[in-house]
């Protein structure tokens, strides 16, 4: 298989993994903290804590995680067809 396809497959799984994490974070804070009676809510920057963590912090955190993932785990590959020699070298 073209080595670039292996990289691509790996990155597709990484993206899927991050999406799963993103969902878990979003769900756990929203319904974990948000299911309490409103009287017991705590507030951060004026917003209910469940909302702050799930939506505001989650947004910032996952934007940052995307940055980390792309910078450290994603590889740059050429898109045009590699010359035969390069193919040999890669093998």
């Amino acid at each position, binding site marked *: 298989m073209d080595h670039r396809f292996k990289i691509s497959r790996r990155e597709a799984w990484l*993206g899927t993994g991050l999406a799963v994490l993103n969902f878990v974070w979003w769900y756990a804070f929203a319904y974990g903290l948000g299911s309490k009676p409103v009287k017991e809510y705590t507030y951060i920057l004026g917003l209910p804590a469940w909302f702050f963590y799930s939506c505001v912090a989650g947004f910032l955190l996952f934007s940052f995680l995307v940055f980390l993932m792309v910078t450290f785990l994603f590889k740059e590959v050429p898109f045009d067809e590699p010359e035969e020699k390069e193919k040999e070298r890669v093998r």
Partner: protein
Amino acid sequence: MNANWQVIVPLIAFLVLMFLVGMYTARAARGSEGFLQDYFLGGRHLGGFVLALTMVATYGSASSFIGGPGIAYNMGLGWVLLSMAQLVTGYFTLAVLGKKFAIIARKINAVTLIDFLKARYESKWVVILAAASISIFLFSATAAQWVGGGRLIESFTGVSYGVALFIFSFSVLVYVIAGGFRAVVITDTLMGIVMFVGTLVILAGTIIAGHGVPTIIHKLSIENPNLITPFGADHSLSPLYVSSFWLLVGIGVVGLPQIAVRAMSYRNSKAMHQAMIIGTFVVGFIMLGMHLTGVFARVVMPGITVGDKVMPLLALKVLPEWLAGIVLAAPLAAVMSTVNSILLIVSSSIVKDVYINYIKPDASEAHIKKLSFSVTAAIGVLVFLAAIKPPDLLIWLNLFSFGGLEASFIWPVVLGLYWKRGNASGALSSILVGVLSYIALDQFYPNAFGMHTVVLPVLLSLIAYIVGSLLFAKKHPLSELL
């Protein structure tokens, strides 16, 4: 609302700017890669910033700026929570379609999503079914956006709906026809910036007008405590229902042709990496900011009954007039950028996928060029006519164009890329099962098991893809592409 020149002038300035950009890029659009590649794809030269913003602008439509915040106004923070399912679109689509899609698209010289399906499945029926599904669903989606664009101009300027619609259609068509994909992505980028700045300005204006976030939240909880829970004002947003939107407006977006085509148009892998970072941030910011503004608006401007009027009225109330004009350009930008990309997709699937593939493969470049312009113009005029007095069928089709396209294409695209044994029989059954089960469920059992209607058809089309592929494996040789 009477004509309000301090709002209209910035709006017109915005339209003229878009017009000039379209004309300018049209002249620049004489690349080396031939007319088709250039007109429909911009010649695969998108950098990271432009790629990110064109994806955000294509994806963010009237609903992100007008409809969504209007619902948030009535539902409270629970709807903001739901809208944040869209954060994942910023990175998921590009990560999953990723480099493989870009590499294969280059190898087979693909310009549209259907080019890819054609090369991958080598089946006339897959191509025709896909082209039909794209034309029908996207045409109705465009018409609905078109209506939205006309209504927006009508409500800001005070001109009649017919005139507003004409202004809107004229400006969209001019630059789409003149500039093709490249003009569209450049204007998309400008519109993305307008959308971002507009969100920032109106959110800040609303918080100031409401005397700070703690005061606003406190007043909301006094009015109805449910407004600040994740469950919605009337307690109708169950966790399962809200979660199912991750499929409809989150990861399912991979299957939308107007998004997928962007995932083959970037310059190199660096551009893709940058686009993921920028796109995630921008889409998250716009969704969070706009929907939160909608909720806060409830305190600043209580008593609005029509959800769609919340944002226009709010902008006029909390901002100086000239600034309101610029902020109101944001939803217009969102509508226009969605419409122009869809227009291009529909005309490309007619000209390229059907006409050149099956009717006249040896058409000359000049002929194709003339045809592309006239088909784009003809579709534009048709949409304009449909939008003047939208027929019921159109409204009905638009309601599930998003889910319908996702149910059709998500598996033929994603599994087509990564599963070697997927084949034409699988793709055909997947498209058919996806669309038909979506229509049937929508009619007879909407929101099955408390989830959005799109969930089951997506699962069924997955099963259909796998079963179809395995069952008829002997009929199809393994694709050389992968």
